[in-house]
């Protein structure tokens, strides 16, 4: 078992970057207007598939950021509760 350590800047350094990655991936959803042609529909279908993947990964990044924040919150809350317990039991 390794040492448990949650840095004070976990949310800023880790979660925030996942949020930024999500925002960048979702910016891809605005594709240019393509003119008519026999292959335009196929091109749009291919782009739609790729952008859906991008959107999914954006959501996964958002959720990852939330999960990191949740873990930090749970661990810090538990730490604080244990600290209060010791204080309450003290003189």
């Amino acid at each position, binding site marked *: 078992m390794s040492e448990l350590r949650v840095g004070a800047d976990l949310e800023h350094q880790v979660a925030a*970057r996942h949020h930024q*990655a999500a925002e*960048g*991936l979702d910016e891809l959803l605005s594709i240019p207007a393509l003119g008519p042609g026999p292959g335009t529909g*196929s091109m749009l279908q291919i782009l739609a598939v790729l952008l859906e993947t991008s959107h999914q990964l954006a959501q996964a990044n958002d959720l990852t950021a939330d999960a990191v924040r949740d873990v930090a919150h749970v661990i810090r809350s538990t730490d604080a509760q244990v600290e209060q317990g010791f204080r309450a039991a003290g003189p």
Partner: protein
Amino acid sequence: MSVDLRTAPSASTLTAPSPSAPGAMCTASGPAAFSIASDGSPAVPRLGVTWVRGTALPALVTAREQVQEALDRAADSFQGISGTAYAFHASIMLRHLGVLADGLTRAAALFESYADRLVAHERLLSGVRAQAVASGFPVTGDMVGTPDGPAGSTEWTAMAAGVAAERQALRQWVATHLDAALADFLDEETFEWVGQFFATHHSTLVSGALGTALQKAHLHKVANIDRGGVRLTARELDRLADDASRLARAAEAVGPIAVAYDTVTALESDEPGRGMAQVSGGVIAAGLVLTLPISSPVAAGLLATGATIVAVEGVKHAWGELPDDWADTLDESIGEGWDDLKDATGDVAGKVWSWVS
């Protein structure tokens, strides 16, 4: 690809377009004119190529860098089994982003070849226009009219047929190269991974340091409910609901990371096949329960937990029933695959496990 109607071997064998052929204007005696307008401009796919290479790929590269930076930072600020599981999760995220980058790169190359095909299409039609003018056929805008007399009618008919064949060939090229390629861009592995991640995060699938303790506390209660032999008082039900709420809150925090932790642990064990089967069984079972039309999140949470436990226990039992050589083969195969992955990912996987041990 370039096609010149005047030198194409098949040009002499072409027949006149049917009255329903695209671009043909007909009279009672046959087509009166045919169109030499282009079916599409290469500027359209080139716009797509420019967007993919100039906007999409750079944005994706930036996103990958941010995830990589998050992973690097986590090495200092996020340690322990949850940090280890996070690192494993983030490394998988990077792999999926890499697959997406590969898809965008292939799409740009495909659009570029489509642009080249349209260039050939335009060049052929320009050649037909030049030939029509040189032969003295009436050319009005993009329409080539029939010759006034019988002279040149054979040539005119061959030209019209050639243009019709070219339009058909272009549509066939689109079907063969663009339509057929669509399936290659469907990244089902990423969809499945993201789907499991979401299902897990919103389920009460728990394990790991915090989750295991809560899971054990509920295993007894859920099992009793399943047997139907326990009559719960209102107070006990309230307590159960409170515990389930705590379980759900904790699971939201540790759920996805706990699964990643379970995965790493299973793969590093002596029986990676058995461990992965249990992890997969739990995830799938919890995901299935979440699809049920249950309005109460507490009830759904309890069911998901129960289903996960039953699934994991079921897999344990089923695994034990397998012939030894089958189980050994699966263990060896999955273990070797994990070793290969570690070799491939190098520092990331090594760093991940070094934090645990």
